[in-house]
């Protein structure tokens, strides 16, 4: 049902504008219907404007009813989607939404954002409190939990081009969005946890290459301290509510050749002398020796980027896209940062994925068709191009799951401006997804972070902290 006849007039200026009727433009029925569907005008206003345009009252009511059914019935009529994101690049998201709405006239989208640190808890409240969005960011952190709670649905049924995309995704990204052979998302971005260092400052200390393992890192850090180049050379985000902490800890374990869980999702991190124990002991020793900034326990990712950029610290472990910010943003040490393979015997690290998910609420509201179009635009291809993923990579340096993007000369040039495509590919080859992802992993993660930070400050021994984490795992499993 599409009408092009100019139907009603709408004031576009402020209501109390002295300009009177100068800000008035013509509206088509399409626009009026969209406005009603988007909730921008109410039922009474809709009927009033339709009547003003000469549409009979019964016809206006019927139109409104059709609009309402279209909104809720998924019959191809106007649909309004709620999109929940964490607060990163919100202006870019809004611009992407605008582009999406221009291409999909029948769908309008409202975006709502909340801090990354509170995202899990906010979403739990929204889903359980009946205010679930239609589409939302999610993460491999929470996939099992959200599926077990029935908050998100598998996309196999609703996403038309899923099979074609799957073959082009990085394995760790596909694995991070897959549960019981069902895919639950289209990638927002996929990236690696990497080791970053300030090349200028380590050269100043007499080192011509980054540390190859964690012990060498301790030696280099001590030298930097002794020479007064940095008071605390190492900075790693370990604020209790920062979800990065666990991914960084996993990376430190993987790079030593260790594991957190076995194939049956049983903890191995608590075995005596495990790589996890070595990693936690290393963190504790670094804290005591002042190689590690004592403020790490109140530092989240953005804090670390700020202090690294200011030259306060020399080494860190962060998600790769931060390297783009450090070398391209407004920082005193801009341009001095390099990526190195994760120190350790295997150089392995965590590869992770954040993705767009469709909620069960979208299915209940019959918004699946519009939600699918939305997911396709944001996580899939438009006119044969990964438009949104490419934009994130070029503008923010976000990593991507869509491997063909590595062949794009524009992307290669962009990455090489702040990083290294070759090194990134090398690191990606030895990257692995997080182990132990189960419905209770999200809950365990919060407890594990608490224990890790307790061990770092010395409230419990590393061994005891790991044992506590294993005990918690078993109780959650039961």
């Amino acid at each position: 049902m599409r009408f092009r006849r100019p139907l009603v007039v709408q004031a576009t200026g402020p209501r109390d504008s002295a300009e009177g009727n100068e800000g008035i433009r013509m509206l088509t029925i399409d626009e009026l219907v969209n406005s009603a569907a988007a909730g921008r005008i109410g039922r009474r206003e809709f009927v009033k404007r339709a009547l003003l345009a000469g549409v009979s009252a019964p016809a206006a009511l019927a139109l409104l009813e059709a609009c309402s059914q279209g909104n809720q019935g998924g019959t191809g009529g106007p649909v309004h989607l709620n999109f929940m994101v964490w607060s990163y690049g919100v202006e870019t998201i809004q611009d992407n939404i605008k582009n999406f709405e221009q291409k999909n006239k029948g769908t309008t989208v409202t975006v709502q954002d909340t801090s990354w640190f509170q995202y899990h808890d906010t979403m739990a409240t929204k889903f359980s409190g009946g205010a679930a969005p239609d589409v939302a960011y999610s993460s491999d952190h929470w996939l099992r939990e959200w599926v077990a709670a029935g908050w998100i649905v598998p996309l196999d049924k609703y996403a038309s081009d899923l099979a074609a995309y799957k073959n082009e995704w990085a394995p760790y990204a596909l694995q991070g969005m897959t549960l019981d052979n069902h895919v639950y998302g289209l990638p927002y971005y996929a990236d690696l946890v990497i080791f970053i260092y300030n090349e200028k400052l380590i050269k100043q200390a007499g080192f011509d290459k980054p540390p190859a393992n964690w012990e060498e890192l301790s030696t280099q850090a001590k030298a930097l301290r002794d020479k007064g180049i940095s008071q605390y050379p190492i900075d790693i985000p370990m604020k209790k509510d920062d979800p990065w902490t666990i991914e960084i800890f996993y990376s430190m374990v993987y790079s030593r050749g260790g594991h957190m869980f076995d194939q049956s999702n049983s903890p191995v991190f608590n075995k005596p002398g495990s790589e996890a124990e070595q990693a936690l002991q290393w963190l504790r020793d670094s804290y005591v020796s002042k190689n590690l900034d004592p403020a790490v326990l109140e530092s989240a990712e953005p804090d670390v980027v700020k202090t690294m950029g200011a030259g306060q610290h020399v080494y860190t472990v962060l998600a790769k896209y931060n390297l783009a910010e450090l070398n391209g943003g407004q920082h005193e040490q801009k341009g001095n940062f390099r990526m190195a393979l994760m120190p350790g015997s295997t150089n392995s690290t965590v590869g992770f994925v954040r993705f767009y998910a469709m909620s069960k609420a979208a299915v209940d509201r019959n918004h699946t068709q519009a939600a699918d179009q939305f997911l396709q635009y944001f996580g899939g291809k438009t006119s044969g191009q990964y438009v949104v993923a490419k934009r994130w990579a070029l503008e923010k340096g976000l990593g991507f799951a869509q491997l063909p993007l590595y062949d794009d000369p524009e992307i290669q040039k962009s990455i090489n401006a702040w990083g290294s495509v070759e090194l990134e590919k090398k690191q990606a080859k030895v990257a692995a997804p997080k182990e132990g992802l189960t419905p209770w992993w999200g809950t365990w993660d919060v407890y594990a972070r608490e224990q890790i930070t307790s061990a770092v400050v010395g409230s419990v021994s590393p061994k005891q902290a790991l044992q506590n984490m294993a005990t918690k795992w078993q109780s959650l499993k039961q």
Partner: protein
Amino acid sequence: MIIHSGVRRFGTARGAGSSGPYRLATLAPVLLLVGLFTVFPFVYAAVTSTHKVLLTLPGQTPFVGLKNYLDVLADGSTQIAVRNTAVFTGLTVPCVTVLGLLVALLLNQPIRGFGVLRALVLLPWAIPLVSAGIIWRLLLHGDFGALNGLLLQVGAVHSYVPWLSSPHLAMYAVIVAHVWREFPLPAILFLAGLQVIPGDVADASTVDGARAWARLRYVTLPYLRGPLLIVLVYETMISISVFDLVYVLTGGGPGTATSLFSWYAYAASFTFLNLGQGAALSFIMAATLLGLIVAYLRIVRVGEDEV
């Protein structure tokens, strides 16, 4: 005549108001609101606390009786939260009360310009808790906090102090922020109490040779018994249930150093997604508050009897 007419009209109105349907009709909206926003959530929470309600296991909510209560009481994390809350409350309530009283005594002096100061002293209390938390976080941050910058410049410290990273310092940092945020209300309440003390009583005690401490002990404080009770009850409730400040300032960390009871109850519900245990923790907190309020009332009544 006019008065008589008015009385008659009032009498008529009362007569109409005393009828059952009228009374019910006027009370219904309030009863509905109370029922909807107080009674229903209370009953719902009570029911939830006796069921196993895990958001990750929807549709499986068996009745477990008091198991949630027993489980949370036996949990080491609860014990840490109780201990932290006891320390926090034990330090903040006296600090807030004494600071509020001192500020009130100061503002009660007939000094020019104190009128403006009385308004200004309310500012910390008027700032939303979340904003206060952010301000304190920026002040105290171990890497770029303004306090560290200041202390370093004046030579009071040789390197930045990790106020929020050290398990011991973090608790004191939260306490200082809380006291700063809370003292204005007691100050204003005490000031109001001070201003109704009859001037001749104070003058008489001075003439009788009472020194400042004696005047405070035997004249001022007995008059402030009412405000003191309100301050103690209110500040105890606030300290035991403080959440926003911890949420913004430390997130309960480092480790479990600032994990207070209300924070832990929140975490149980929305981080660990265990609504049954979260509800049980909330009821335990409510019962504790009730017990403390009753105890305060008794103590004050005993004090009144002694006077």
